[in-house]
């Protein structure tokens, strides 16, 4: 991969996802706060395996999820710091994503556990800043940087 000729482009975005689960808010929250339960669903896609996982769920506490794709050797590193911890109700954390050592993104994620007649409504909102020079609309820079690396990055997040 060649070095970009100009300064990396910074792009921003946000999204929300809503889910209703047939479970009490305390149970849904426990799936986020208990590291063994979280390991059942907070994982990478097929071909990805876990290298390290830690979770210290308190304000100022950190979470790490380090993994690797067997096929490409691509490493993913998620490092989070919790800013708001309200048991059974809300979580706010900031996290970095590094892909094979390169800083890919910085995010603020909010998780709300809302009581619902059907169980629990979960709302996940993420505000993300991509910092490694990827412009989604303009392929100019990416062409300078080589397609293969981009394809690998797409694959790493599938």
């Amino acid at each position, binding site marked *: 991969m060649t070095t970009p000729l100009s300064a990396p482009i910074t792009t921003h975005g946000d999204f929300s996802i809503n*889910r209703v689960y047939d479970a009490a808010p305390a149970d849904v929250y426990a799936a986020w706060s208990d590291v063994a339960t979280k390991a059942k669903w907070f994982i990478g896609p097929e071909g990805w395996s876990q290298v390290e996982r830690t979770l210290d769920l308190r304000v100022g506490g950190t979470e790490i999820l380090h993994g690797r794709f067997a*096929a490409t050797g691509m490493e993913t590193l998620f490092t989070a710091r919790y800013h708001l911890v309200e048991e059974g109700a809300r979580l706010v954390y900031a996290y970095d994503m590094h892909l094979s050592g390169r800083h890919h993104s910085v995010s603020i994620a909010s998780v709300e556990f809302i009581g619902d007649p059907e169980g629990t409504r979960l709302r996940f909102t993420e505000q993300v800043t991509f910092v490694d020079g990827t412009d989604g609309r303009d392929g100019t820079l990416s062409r300078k940087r080589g397609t293969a690396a981009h*394809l*690998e990055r797409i694959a790493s997040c599938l």
Partner: protein
Amino acid sequence: MLQHQPLDRVFQALSDPSRRAIVDRLSRSDASVSELAQPLAMSLAAVVQHVQLLEASGLIRTHKTGRVRNCHLDRDVLSQAETWLSQRRTLWEDNLDRLGEVLARQKSERARAATLVEPTNTTPATPRRQRKPT
């Protein structure tokens, strides 16, 4: 915002290492199907299938001249595929779907445990077994 359906097809098309190798090869120059097959350890028929899937996703276009099918990478689609936000969202949707499966399994396991311990339990256990995600 981008439309999700076409992007999903693009990501699906790129989920396979052989297809990524084909796209990487086409990012250097156009190539025929047999030229694409050469560096890949697979049959021509398999390459044709990959090419068809890539074409359906809109990532590549093909054009037949005589008996040779030439392949061309559509760079606009590829740069659209680089829209990480959409891909990040998909990542979290998958996570939250898996979370739902974990919660459903917990519920059915608890219901089964309750019927084993208390046969007179008034709430009938309706185990809704879900397949483990692989």
